[in-house]
């Protein structure tokens, strides 16, 4: 897979001389990007491209390219907006390495992508050329300068009169240039024209034929232009999918999961990059009787969800890092009162406001240990898009079975990434049972903790004989405030035991690769696909490396220590900071490890190294691969 990717840029894609045959590269996978100024439709173009590829049976993974501002200045390096699509013959598990092909609406956004090291050296660039003849001399000069530099640097730049071509069909090329680009890309990348035209119809279905037809014309025009003028074709063989598949991003999958879990209250406060899950739910939750409450702040959202959970079905609150910090006191209350609660944290770069639209996994330790006092809660992470859907259902079940808080960690890279997965078949068991309103039997107390498991029955308002005052103060079996030190000790023990009880039901995760060897990589969350791809590449060279991916971070399944001990060395790999031992002042005694490394070192008493990046991008398999090779020596 990797080698073909390296060789493909040797070909020179230039305007096709008439009647010359085109060069077709047959690949197992490639990465294509479309970037524009914000509002020019590159994101929609990319999403449509991905949907067409998915419908053809390809494996795909899309990554949204999102500027930090809603309307960044036009033609700015930071303003790049668009989509990256990795297309494969087989299932694609991550966004891949640098792009093989880029469509850009101006040269400045392209520079942004080059600075972010997202483009393969020498890759093909299809560039809007209208800037060359701009009446604004500074723009024309900037364009020419960047163009010449790119060419000097070895990129295969093909200038395309996108706007000029679009003007043949529409008066305002700003609306619709993205469909012309979609046509270009579809032709170059070997997509099916019929499916592409259908996709346009689907995309604009709500707007009717008046909008669909010109957009289809533009798509066809782009296709035809590529057919007539471009000398390069990528083709990824595919076999048509046999099963229906769902194509959604991680946040929509989370929203679907909330619906399917039987929860009926989601309380939230707007925060990037989590909010799109609530946008989706706000649109559809009512169809199953659910409500989305946009609270006045993150604290209120958490408290509202706790109230709803206390009086009914388990509720969910969805947030990101800063919001998670604000919810910590509320989470502690839910732990203390043993109120089931699902807290979804779609992580972003931190600390503080950090990088709201960018990927990072920095909240693991905050999720496990963040609140004050001893507050045992369950922490799970999602590792792909399908997992986003099913994990919400699992989280709700665990929360209600153990009367615990379940924190579900996703992150910005999964939230906006799309990956098809087998369409779930509705299952009655997903749904929450009706709220218990039966009378409480005589003699049963509000916290009748089981001595072994710590589990207690939850009393819900409306249940006769169950009257008690739930309190965030230390309390006894009757929910009376505890002034007795022994009793406080005992009740903390009961709450702690519930995690041990849950832990006994967890299956040890499977090792990816050999069960023993030289190096084991441990990861969690969104990095799974990239880590396993890197491990596969390194193993292909005969190196001894395996990986382990953890879903349950707290409690952790048993048997993990034994796995770690079967390897000479262990390294945590995550999208997080860790001090570099090569820095002059850093040594074993003061090194700050990455989140997972801290956790595993404490849990397993194993010497664990770590590697990670905090560049605001999902970890690339190539970068992990280099780290593994370096570690293996």
């Amino acid at each position: 897979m990797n080698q073909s990717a390296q060789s493909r840029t040797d070909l020179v894609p230039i305007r096709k001389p008439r009647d010359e045959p085109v060069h077709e590269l047959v690949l197992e996978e490639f990465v294509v990007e479309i970037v524009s100024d914000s509002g020019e439709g590159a994101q929609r173009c990319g999403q449509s491209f991905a949907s067409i590829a998915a419908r053809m049976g390809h494996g795909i993974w899309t990554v949204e390219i999102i500027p930090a501002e809603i309307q960044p200045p036009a033609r700015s390096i930071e303003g790049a907006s668009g989509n990256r699509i990795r297309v494969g013959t087989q299932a694609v598990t991550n966004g891949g390495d640098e792009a093989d092909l880029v469509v850009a609406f101006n040269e400045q956004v392209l520079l942004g992508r080059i600075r972010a090291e997202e483009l393969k050296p020498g890759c093909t660039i299809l560039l809007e050329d209208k800037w060359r003849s701009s009446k604004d001399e500074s723009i024309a000069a900037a364009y020419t300068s960047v163009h010449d530099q790119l060419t000097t640097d070895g990129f295969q730049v093909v200038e395309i009169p996108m706007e000029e071509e679009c003007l043949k069909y529409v008066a305002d090329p700003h609306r619709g240039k993205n469909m012309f680009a979609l046509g270009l890309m579809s032709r170059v990348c070997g997509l099916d024209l019929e499916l592409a035209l259908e996709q346009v119809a689907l995309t604009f279905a709500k707007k009717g034929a008046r909008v669909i037809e010109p957009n289809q014309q533009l798509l066809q025009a782009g296709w035809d232009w590529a057919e007539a003028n471009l000398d390069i074709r990528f083709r990824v063989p595919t076999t048509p999918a046999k099963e229906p598949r769902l194509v959604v991003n991680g946040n929509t999958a989370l929203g679907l999961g909330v619906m399917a879990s039987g929860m009926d209250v989601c309380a939230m406060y707007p925060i990037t990059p989590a909010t799109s899950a609530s946008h989706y739910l706000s649109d559809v939750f009512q169809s199953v009787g659910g409500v989305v409450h946009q609270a006045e702040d993150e604290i209120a959202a958490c408290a509202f969800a706790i109230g709803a959970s206390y009086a009914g079905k388990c509720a969910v609150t969805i947030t990101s890092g800063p919001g998670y910090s604000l919810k910590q006191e509320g989470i502690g209350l839910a732990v203390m009162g043993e109120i089931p609660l699902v807290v979804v944290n779609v992580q972003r770069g931190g600390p503080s406001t950090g990088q709201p639209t960018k990927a990072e996994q920095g909240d693991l330790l905050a999720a496990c240990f963040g609140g004050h006092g001893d507050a045992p809660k369950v922490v799970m992470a999602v590792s792909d898009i399908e997992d986003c859907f099913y994990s919400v259902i699992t989280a709700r079940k665990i929360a209600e079975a153990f009367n615990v808080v379940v924190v579900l960690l996703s992150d910005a890279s999964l939230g906006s990434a799309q990956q098809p997965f087998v369409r779930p078949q509705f299952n009655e068991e997903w749904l929450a049972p009706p709220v218990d309103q039966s009378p409480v039997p005589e003699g049963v107390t509000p916290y009748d903790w089981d001595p072994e498991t710590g589990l207690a029955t939850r009393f819900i308002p409306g249940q006769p004989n169950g009257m008690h005052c739930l309190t965030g103060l230390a309390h006894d079996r009757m929910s009376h405030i505890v002034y007795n030190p022994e009793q406080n000790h005992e009740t903390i023990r009961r709450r702690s035991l519930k995690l041990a009880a849950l832990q006994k039901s967890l299956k040890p995760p499977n090792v990816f690769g050999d069960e023993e060897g030289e190096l084991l990589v441990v990861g969690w969350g969104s990095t799974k696909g990239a880590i396993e791809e890197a491990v596969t590449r390194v193993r292909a060279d005969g190196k001894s490396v395996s990986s382990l991916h953890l879903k349950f971070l707290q409690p952790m399944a048993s048997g993990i220590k034994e796995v770690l001990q079967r390897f000479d060395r262990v390294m945590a790999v995550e999208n997080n900071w860790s001090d570099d031992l090569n820095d002059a002042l850093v040594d074993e005694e003061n090194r700050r490890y990455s989140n997972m490394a801290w956790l595993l070192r404490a849990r397993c008493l194993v010497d664990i190294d770590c590697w990670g990046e905090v560049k605001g991008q999902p970890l690339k398999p190539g970068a992990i691969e280099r780290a593994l090779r370096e570690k293996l020596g």
Partner: protein
Amino acid sequence: MSVSAPRCLLWSNDEPVVLDDYVSEEPRWCTGCGDLAILAAVQRLCRDEQLAREKIVFVSGIGCSSRFPHYMNTYGFHGLHGRALPVAEGIRIKRPDLHVFVNTGDGDCCSIGAAHWIHAIRYNMNMTVLLHDNEIYGLTKKQVSPTSPKGLASNTTPRGAYLDSLNPMETTLGVANVSFAAQAVDWAPGLLYDIISKAYKHPGCSFVRVLQRCPEYLPEHFDHWMDDPDQLLLLTHEDGMQVTPDLARIYKQQEIHDPMDLNRAREIASMKDRIPVGILYRNEQVPCYEDVLNPAGLFTPEVVRTNIEAELDKFTVWPAS
């Protein structure tokens, strides 16, 4: 809705409930604390309305007043400092069958929970909010509160409070969607009961500020008002509070005030020379958030299944036939 109506009816109590049935444990408030008067009024209300104990939830934050739910033999939720209102909103959202009360102090409501207070008024969810306002922090031992008058000496303002106090009635009446705002004092129990009873019956968020004594930290703070009945201004109206002849003889200062008159309510709220007691504002036409937010219809398992399948279909890519 989480509970089917017929099942709720099935469990409605058929034996009369007496006052003692609502009593759980001996309150641990100080002797003479104004909270005791509020507790007595609320227990009497529950008895008079014959409310099923399992259908009542008292929600509180943190502070002396927030111990209230512990002393009611009902469901209670004694949560976080300042966060009683959003918890109560969450309880209410899927449970129209419950009677929801909130007990919150002046620190809890007007300081740490001020954001929630403003929005709770705006949401107008059906609940009775009792602001136990003694104008001082009690449980943390005498610190200045937002409602403490300027100049009040406390442990954090030993040379006197620096700022003018916040007037909870003015604030409440300034918020969009306000539907019920009333004021009472703990030393006039008959009026207190009457006002809380009217608040309970109001379909929406009924906000009642109760001025109450803290004998421990501000023992003489309200004496000036208590000793002279003319310091109170009773708000009466045929659609509001009516005063018995006995009380009318004591409290001679009265104003006939239409609870629908928001402008006059705001003027009354801003009075400095007298304490207005009664219903300042009431508007039953303001929609309740839970009624607006909750979708109509019955969500049977079959409906839920069908609609989840439809959502899955929306994103499904079907194999080419």
